[in-house]
């Protein structure tokens, strides 16, 4: 009798503990600003923690799930459109954000941060604003190839690209890059170009970090990646160098973007976070971080790390990324059909 009472008590106790624990976890987001963040959390978390410490506004971050690609945050926000959970979206690029703006997921906000960003990197209606960019670059193994444009271009034009790697163009900044090419070459042109690229043996690998790893280890001689991945390789001591990828003389600078979600009930806090992320201080922090993001607004240049200064100049020569938003969906549809055929 006593034993069965003890057992029942133990079961009830366990249930109470579980319910209490789950309630505690649920409460984490109750009075918090929910931020969906596609930027690499290794770098983003520190910024958001600083914001929390400075403002006292609690932030809960939902990171992008690189593991499940499609279930990326853009798709999640589209799914949640009628039942929004997120307050602020920090995307690590801009085309996905533009798609959300087109779908009516974002609401306009033009704060102090908006004003300091050049027009070329923000939405005219204020539905999103770009900041802290990355450049698309050639990454070159310095032991295997000369590091100048006269060295890279002939290799790229040669019949054998089996020692070159690019990230899967269905995702991330490579998709943005391909959308630009879609605009530049047209539908038929890019299809022919991509077919030719694969025909010449170019390796398509999962991500820009993998491109960096392959080039750093000498498995490939060169490839396309982003500046943040390049710097990770450089910091690890790899013998790599970079050159900006240019199209018709222009570089490709892909900014982070931040936006307020339509239907948020924490508008004031969301606005404070957006202004914070778009501030000079945060752009400088990101420039000094391991990812060396390029400030897009005006900053005190003496505060910039040496290796970011040339990037800042290249960013000024960038194409207007807002011009190829429409190409993204068509390009993605084609790439998906291409990958699955």
């Amino acid at each position, binding site marked *: 009798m006593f034993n069965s009472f003890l057992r029942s008590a133990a079961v009830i106790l*366990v249930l109470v503990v*579980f319910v209490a*624990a*789950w309630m505690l*976890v*649920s409460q*984490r*987001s109750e009075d*918090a600003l*929910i931020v969906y963040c596609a930027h*690499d*959390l*290794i770098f983003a*978390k520190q910024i958001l923690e600083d914001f929390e410490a400075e403002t006292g506004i609690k932030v*809960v971050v*939902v*990171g*992008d*799930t*690189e*593991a*499940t*690609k*499609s*279930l990326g945050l853009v*798709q999640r926000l*589209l*799914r*949640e459109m009628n*039942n929004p*959970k*997120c307050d602020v979206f920090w995307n690590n690029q801009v085309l996905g954000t533009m798609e959300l703006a087109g779908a009516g997921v974002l609401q306009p906000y033009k704060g102090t941060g908006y004003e300091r960003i050049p027009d070329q990197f923000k939405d005219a209606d204020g539905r999103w604003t770009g900041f802290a960019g990355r450049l698309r670059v050639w990454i070159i193994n310095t032991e295997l190839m000369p590091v100048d444009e006269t060295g890279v271009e002939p290799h790229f034009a040669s019949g054998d690209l*089996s020692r070159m*790697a690019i990230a899967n163009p*269905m*995702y991330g900044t490579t998709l943005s890059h391909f959308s630009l090419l879609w605009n530049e070459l047209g539908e038929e042109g890019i299809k022919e170009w991509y077919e030719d690229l694969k025909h010449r043996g170019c*390796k398509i*690998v*999962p*991500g820009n*970090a*993998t491109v*960096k*790893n*392959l080039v750093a*280890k000498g*498995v*490939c001689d060169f490839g396309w990646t982003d500046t943040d*991945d390049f710097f*990770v390789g450089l910091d*690890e001591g790899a013998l790599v160098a970079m050159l900006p990828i240019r199209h018709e003389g222009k570089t490709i600078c892909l900014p982070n973007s931040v936006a307020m979600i339509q239907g948020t009930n924490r508008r004031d806090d969301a606005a404070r976070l957006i202004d914070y992320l778009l501030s000079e201080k945060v752009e400088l922090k990101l420039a000094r971080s391991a990812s060396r993001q390029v400030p897009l607004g005006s900053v005190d240049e003496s505060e910039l790390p040496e290796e970011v200064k040339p990037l800042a100049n290249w960013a000024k020569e960038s194409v207007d990324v807002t011009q190829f938003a429409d190409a993204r969906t068509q390009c*993605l*549809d084609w790439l*998906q059909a291409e*990958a*699955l*055929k």
Partner: protein
Amino acid sequence: MSWIEAILWSVSRAAVVALLGTLIATGVLRWIEALPPARKAWGWCSVLVPFFVPSLMTGYCYRDTSMALVHFPWLREFLYGLIVTMQVVPVAVVILAFSPTPATSAAALYTGRLFNLKPSQQWRLIVNSRFQYHIAAFCLLFLLSFQEADLAALMQASGWTEWMFTKHAAGLMLGETMRLTLWPVLIQLPFFIPVLFWLGKDSNLNSNAISHFFRSPKWMNGAVILWLIASILTVVLVPGSQLVLGIRVGIGSLFQQPSVPREIGDALLIAATTIVCAIGITATFRWMAFRKRGRSGTLLMLFCLLLPGLLGNLALGLIIAGIFQTAPLQFAYDTPLPLILGEVGVILPKTMILFHCVICMGVPASKHFISLLGSAVGRRQRISAAELQWQTTGRVRFAVVTIVGFWAYFEVLLPSILAMPGLAPVGLVLYNNLHYGRIAALGAKLALALLIPFLVALVYLLLRRFCSRFSSV
């Protein structure tokens, strides 16, 4: 690769893995059975340990190797297939070792052959012999290999799971996800049925069972030992050594991450909840099935309980996410419910298999006496009974709970789809970081994450020992 090609590729790979795995497992079991009793425990440890290495650890080790094989894609597929085979062979060994005594004994089979029975009668004898467990083992290995998605994603191995990832790049509606999942489920059904029959078998403990003893030729024993060494080296020691190197590199960054304890706490909470639900359902099922219902009712109930597991964790996660986005269930979308449902759906089949094996290990003859001793008036007797119960059945049950918890603790795909805002278990965070390619900084965190379940188990064991000593004083 088209959808059909991706499925066919997965089917072919799974069939090869299952066939090889079952053959190897047969040899391994014979080797274990021939070991002297004192060495059996070590033998079992060496066989089982590769199965418990999480895909995060093997992925951490072999992701870069796999990427470096970019010029030799067939080698990458081979490496992936080899690792999967090494990790699933222990499952087949366990199935073969811990199954109920078959209706047809080896002697009956031999007699049947002497009587020159009709092929159909001969076949019926064979199907009711130990051969049915080889079929069950083959089918289970097929299912495990066919559904494997975590390591495939990290190593970029081709197959239906990777195809589905890609298909979701532009987003899919719930109906389309379900339509796509239908084919893999249909393909798995014929392989699921023998496993279902195996699970639905009453353990029917036969204390008079005659155990078979085959003495394997020396070359086979040598091959088995080589296989075990290769498995432990490939799946345990090489990833383990990388981890140790990673600890040295990443130990500094570990202390700069204040979120680590919370991430570990989240993973433990998910694991504990899954343990309670999965083991509760399994125990309730066994109680209901073998007392209240006939065999067909048992099988039907089993089928319903295990069907969600056939979807695989990716498809199951997507479907649950879709269902909880529909109007009637939207209120529960950002609660723990979708994640718990998904975790239980995926872990339940494994728990049931584990339970079945444990029951087939046999109930000690002393069980009844221990229960009598436990209800004795004297306190000392009751304490002795509790200790005896631990020695005879408690340890095994504890192992089951630990293993189920370990699986749930390291499940990564479901939390990535279904976790509510604010919930970020350590496995998921590590998995995402692996995809970002931040390998160097991960070693220490992964080592800590791996250590925690063992520490929790150790604390429990120490507490139990302390309580048992304290109460016997």
